[in-house]
């Protein structure tokens, strides 16, 4: 063989090696108790759905591996003045279908998030206007100075304008109407993973997006399967059928801790569980009782006294939760350390009920999901038996979240008594006031998750003031005072702050955030 042949041969070899063996295919198989409710990133503000989709869609900003807010589709930003923010968009970003990301996509996504059927109006609640300065620059003007605009924007996912309009997905799908639109089963984001196949409730497959602008990590394929039976879920993990189970059923923690090749990963989660009571209807629904007992503060206090949250933590949550004194986890900005719980006391509860005119209690229907939160169905059952002791007869409707959410969400709020929870994705209490505690003002994106319909105007005023206060200390004090007012009014009965507990195969590195994000680009298959 003469020397002349060698160079082309080497080149050919190099090319064929590159073609045949790219980075090794690493499949991550994830199982969870429930599925994302749809693939539309603006239709259902539920942590699991949001953060599942955050692997496919991206926002202007996102939390990085260390839970700090960093630019995602925004390369950088500057504050022109107290109310004006200018975002420089990242160059060379393309959507999964190949079209190029530009400022009109951001404007379109903001319009979409503010449209009628959106569940994300709150993310732009502080925004007066927004516009594209040029192809790569977006300017956002807030109504008043907003110290946490970036936190607010975390949940605003960006869609491709052309793709959405071409596929009839210019508006978010209506969750309550259980609409089956294109965007419910198809996705086209800029994220590190693209949806390859989707069968709701059965299996969703993601593949690493070749054209991703950033580092997509070493996971090349993600197979997500919902499994709503604890034993099946855990056996799938133990047998190696799946690599990651989130959340891990609490009763199986010891089994996984002692299992070979598997491990338990846990950390504190910012999710506060609570019981909600209808405070807006004159007549509660699905109950034979005349009128609405929950309008009486004493009845709400009685329920808070009757529900032994510590027993639920010890017995139902196997100790994997901490008692909540308010509607926040202690690490969230605006947490009020001075608040205490109404103590568990059947006698106090009974006498309060008697004072309110219900010495023998009353009957009410409770709505509860069975595959959304850790042991949600069990928490509800325990609540039923705890309330029975003070004479309140609860008819429990325990249902999968696919039925639960459409029933209880805006605009019908079809429940008078329910179990729910909230994680402020901004890690700031204002998010809770905007969504859960503030007086409902759906058109302005406020109180979309205030299913109780409670309203404390003084707290609203304090929250509104905090929203425009730049001084961090004064702002925190306002949020704390507002929280104290809500707790005093027993808007909701706080139960516990749950612990984030996952089960994983030994060779999987995961990243846990208190807000339950699971950015798969930071996960590793070893």
């Amino acid at each position: 063989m003469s020397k002349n042949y060698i160079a082309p041969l080497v080149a050919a070899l190099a090319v064929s090696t590159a073609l045949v063996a790219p980075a090794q295919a690493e499949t991550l198989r994830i199982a969870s108790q429930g599925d994302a409710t749809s693939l539309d990133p603006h239709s259902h503000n539920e942590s699991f759905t949001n953060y599942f989709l955050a692997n496919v869609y991206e926002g202007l900003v996102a939390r990085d591996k260390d839970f700090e807010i960093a630019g995602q589709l925004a390369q950088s930003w500057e504050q022109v003045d107290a109310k004006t923010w200018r975002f420089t968009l990242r160059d060379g970003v393309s959507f999964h279908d190949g079209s190029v990301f530009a400022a009109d996509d951001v404007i379109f996504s903001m319009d979409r998030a503010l449209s009628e059927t959106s569940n994300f109006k709150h993310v732009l609640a502080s925004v007066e206007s927004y516009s594209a300065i040029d192809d790569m620059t977006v300017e956002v003007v807030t109504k008043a100075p907003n110290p946490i605009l970036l936190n607010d924007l975390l949940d605003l996912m960006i869609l491709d304008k052309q793709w959405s309009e071409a596929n009839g997905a210019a508006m978010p799908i209506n969750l309550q109407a259980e609409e089956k639109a294109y965007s419910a089963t198809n996705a086209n984001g800029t994220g590190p993973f693209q949806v390859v196949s989707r069968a709701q409730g059965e299996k969703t497959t993601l593949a690493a997006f070749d054209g991703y602008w950033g580092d997509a990590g070493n996971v090349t394929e993600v197979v997500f399967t919902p499994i709503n039976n604890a034993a099946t879920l855990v056996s799938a993990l133990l047998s190696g059928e799946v690599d990651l189970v989130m959340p891990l059923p609490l009763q199986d923690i010891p089994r996984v801790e002692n299992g070979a090749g598997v491990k338990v990963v846990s950390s504190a989660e910012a999710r506060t569980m609570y019981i909600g009571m209808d405070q807006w209807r004159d007549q509660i629904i699905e109950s034979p009782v005349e009128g609405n007992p929950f309008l009486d503060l004493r009845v709400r206090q009685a329920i808070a006294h009757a529900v032994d949250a510590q027993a639920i933590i010890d017995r139902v949550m196997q100790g994997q939760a901490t008692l909540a004194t308010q509607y926040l986890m202690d690490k969230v900005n605006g947490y009020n350390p001075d608040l205490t719980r109404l103590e568990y006391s059947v006698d106090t509860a009974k006498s309060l009920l008697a004072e309110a005119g219900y010495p023998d209690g009353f009957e009410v229907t409770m709505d509860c999901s069975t595959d959304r939160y850790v042991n949600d169905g069990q928490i509800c059952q325990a609540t039923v038996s705890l309330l029975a002791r003070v004479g309140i007869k609860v008819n429990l409707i325990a249902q999968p979240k696919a039925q639960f959410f459409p029933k209880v969400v805006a605009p019908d709020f079809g429940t008078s008594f329910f179990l729910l929870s909230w994680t402020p994705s901004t890690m700031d209490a204002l998010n809770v006031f905007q969504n859960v505690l503030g007086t409902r003002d759906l058109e302005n994106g406020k109180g979309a998750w205030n299913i109780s319909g409670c309203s404390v105007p003084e707290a609203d005023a304090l929250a509104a003031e905090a929203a425009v206060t730049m001084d961090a200390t004064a702002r925190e004090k306002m949020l704390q005072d507002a929280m104290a007012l809500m707790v005093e009014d027993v808007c909701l009965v706080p139960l516990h702050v749950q612990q984030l507990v996952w089960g994983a195969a030994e060779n999987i590195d995961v990243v846990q955030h208190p807000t339950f994000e699971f950015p798969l680009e930071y996960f590793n298959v070893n």
Partner: protein
Amino acid sequence: MLERIRSDFWYELLNSPVTVVSAVIIALMIIGCTFAPVFAPHTPFDPATISIMDNNMPPAWADGADPRFLLGTDLQGRDVLSAMLYGGRISLQVGIGAVALSVVIGMIVGLVAGYFGGMTDAVLMRVAEIQFAFPPILIALLFNGILKASLPADVFAQAAVPIMILAIGLAGWVQFARIVRASAMVQRGQDYVTACHAIGLPTVTIILRHITPNILGPVLVLAMLQIAVAIVTEATLSFLGLGTPLTEPSLGALIQIGSQYLFSGIWWVVIFPGIMLLVMVVAFNLVADWVRDYLNPRLR
């Protein structure tokens, strides 16, 4: 038929100890479950009497047990034994109720088709065959689903037992219709039917007073077998989460709840209701088997 029962019934029965044991078990279960409020040590369906602090207690003979709970407690603190008795009551109610409904529908369709024949027979039996082409569990799921979609959630939860009876009963009538039709066709040509016609008895009287008693044997056997099937169907539906509410679980629902804890060492919540379901179904099958042999003249 009645005469034969008087002459050798007890002799034949006592010659089959398996059947005697099965019959005794069925009797005990029916009595125990029917009067569950009397026999059960606790009232698991009354949330006021359940304490979450008593949960996950092992059976009385294990370490850390509480003598108040013979077979232990579940995650909610319900006494497993009591929950089994109350749950068994629901299972029996659904099993017997659904079969009663199937028998009534099946006998009416079968008698009409078999006696009148012709077009009536053809139409009724084709309808029956179409339904027969689908597995009963699928039909029950379908009826259950339709009712669930058309009734408000709270009504559906409260009417769980009648809805299950309806769903499973409507799924099971075809087999009865087929054997009743076959027997009715045989009886129609018998001399006694001709005699009835001759003396001018109305058709309804002939069918109800004279033909019906003569076809009850096979219906009885099938009914006993079908009770076992209906109980299993109910357990399956409940296991799939379509049956009784969490606060008033049937045996199937108890097994479903318990199956969540298979890996956590809390085995008693699933094993005991499972054994009870198994024993109940096997006992009904064994008794039905014996009755079939007893009524079959060719085996004598």
